[in-house]
């Protein structure tokens, strides 16, 4: 099928994959809001949402429906185009990273006699990790535009806080990942996942977490800051800024901001699982692969990755309901004087170890 010299089957396959990923991101994010309320309730000895459906499982639908039918208010003194662009941009940047995550191993599919190899990854680009940085550094625009165009001092303060916080923590995040890249020798996420095949090989763990525990710790702390989640939820701390950068937003625009945060959490959990915890790999996967048809094995792998992702999301939630919020100067001190030197030391030690012990 070649029309306009475009391979249409390839095109359709990718579009279907993108649709599935985006829709499941929405689904996971919706149920993450439910999960957050349940986790909070359990940790505070309450019941949590219980009225809508069994265990309150229909609560996200009810919330979404409510947000859709609320009155849409655009403040008079706002910059209107940017006010509308803000939440849209935030949502787009939240979803963009999902394009390079390998959700499962390739499997073959036979359509009309010809065999197609279907990759469960939208794009395997050889700059994969840098792409994550690119998208993360763009994520702040949605917040900044929303905060500034609202023409509200609290929103503006919150947007500025968010921008300086994310710029500060991007540095430590990048430095921690450079140490990982020195171990993996590649930037392609697909190759990084394939290197972490199984769980144990050549007398050591294959997962990057066991090779770079310090980098993992730094990356984890930085993702809390980039996600604006407690204990680093400075841009939204209600006791100082009322509500934060989405103060003036109402209806589904507010919904987009709140929702995109959960999508961000989902995607960064997927990145954490992929880079440090072996992606879709699991112990004893070779035996499972030999016993299963290819398609089923891929489904099992995707399930394994999702289990890891849900684990990280739960971890994010436990931290939020356990630790109190930092003060702003403490946050910046931790970033600049704590994490960046730590990441640099980790980098030097990793380089030295590779040079003296693994130099082939």
């Amino acid at each position, binding site marked *: 099928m070649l029309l306009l010299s475009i391979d249409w089957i390839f095109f359709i396959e990718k579009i279907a994959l993108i649709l599935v990923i985006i829709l499941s991101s929405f689904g996971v994010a919706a149920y993450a809001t439910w999960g957050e309320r349940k986790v909070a309730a359990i940790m505070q000895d309450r019941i949590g949402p219980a009225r809508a459906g069994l265990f309150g499982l229909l609560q996200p639908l009810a919330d979404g429906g409510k947000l859709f039918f609320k009155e849409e208010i655009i403040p008079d003194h706002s910059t209107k*185009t940017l006010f509308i662009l803000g939440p849209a941009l935030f949502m787009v940047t939240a979803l963009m990273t999902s394009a390079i995550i390998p959700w499962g191993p390739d499997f073959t599919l036979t359509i009309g006699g010809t065999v197609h190899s279907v990759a469960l990854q939208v794009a395997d680009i*050889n700059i994969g990790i840098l792409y994550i940085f*690119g998208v993360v550094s763009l994520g702040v625009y949605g917040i900044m535009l929303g905060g500034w165009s609202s023409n509200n001092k609290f929103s503006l303060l919150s947007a500025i806080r968010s921008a300086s916080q994310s710029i500060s923590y991007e540095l430590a995040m990048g430095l921690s990942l450079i140490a990982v890249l020195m171990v993996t020798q590649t930037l392609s996420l697909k190759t990084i996942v394939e290197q972490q095949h199984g769980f144990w090989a050549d007398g050591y763990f294959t997962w990057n977490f066991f090779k770079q525990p310090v980098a993992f710790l730094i990356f984890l702390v930085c993702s809390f800051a980039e996600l604006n989640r407690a204990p680093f939820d400075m841009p939204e701390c209600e006791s100082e800024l009322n509500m934060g950068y989405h103060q003036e937003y109402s209806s589904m625009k507010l919904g987009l901001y709140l929702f995109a945060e959960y999508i961000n959490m989902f995607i960064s959990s997927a990145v954490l699982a992929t880079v440090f915890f072996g992606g879709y790999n699991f112990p004893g996967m070779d035996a499972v692969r030999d016993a299963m048809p290819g398609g089923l094995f891929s489904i099992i792998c995707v399930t394994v990755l999702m289990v890891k992702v849900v684990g990280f999301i739960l971890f994010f939630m436990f931290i939020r309901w356990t630790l109190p919020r930092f003060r702003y100067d403490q946050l910046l001190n931790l970033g600049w004087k704590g994490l960046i030197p730590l990441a640099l030391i980790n980098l030097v030690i990793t380089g030295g170890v590779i040079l003296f012990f693994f130099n082939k």
Partner: protein
Amino acid sequence: MSLHEILFWFLSAMAIGCALGVILSRNPVKSVLFLIATFFAISGHYVLMNAQFLAIVNIIVYAGAIMVLFLFVIMLMNLNADAEPQKSRLVQFAAVLSGGALFLVIIAAFTKAGLNIDGAAVDSSGEIGLIKNLGIALFKDYVLPFEVSSVLFLSAMIGAMVLGKKEDVPNHLESKIKN
């Protein structure tokens, strides 16, 4: 038309349109946003030429870091269309003249540059833009200029910090400031 050409024309139109938007929009925040869109279009061109590293670094450094700081400053100064200073006729005339002269120079340079017009608009077969080849080139053939430029950046950074630091005003000057 191949997909490659479709993308090329789309990105070119986007780059030129957004670049015009930068100079034509009256709101400085919108200008910054148009500039970011221009960077994206240019990055798209880099990807078409198989220079993926250059493309993503263009986005990280320019769109992700420098433009965020630009936006930061513009937001804090709260520039609006009505706060724009009125320039005199003489300044406007001088601006048109110097802009036109610059345009003339660019046109002259382009006519000399031997543009490749016959069909093959962009070349996607080159491998030099891939990160591995670029790294080898930077750290083997050009290692001295590379390191020297990094020292230059370091000194610029330290210089900015020294300038930005609060100075202890000597006592005899402080009394003068108060008076």
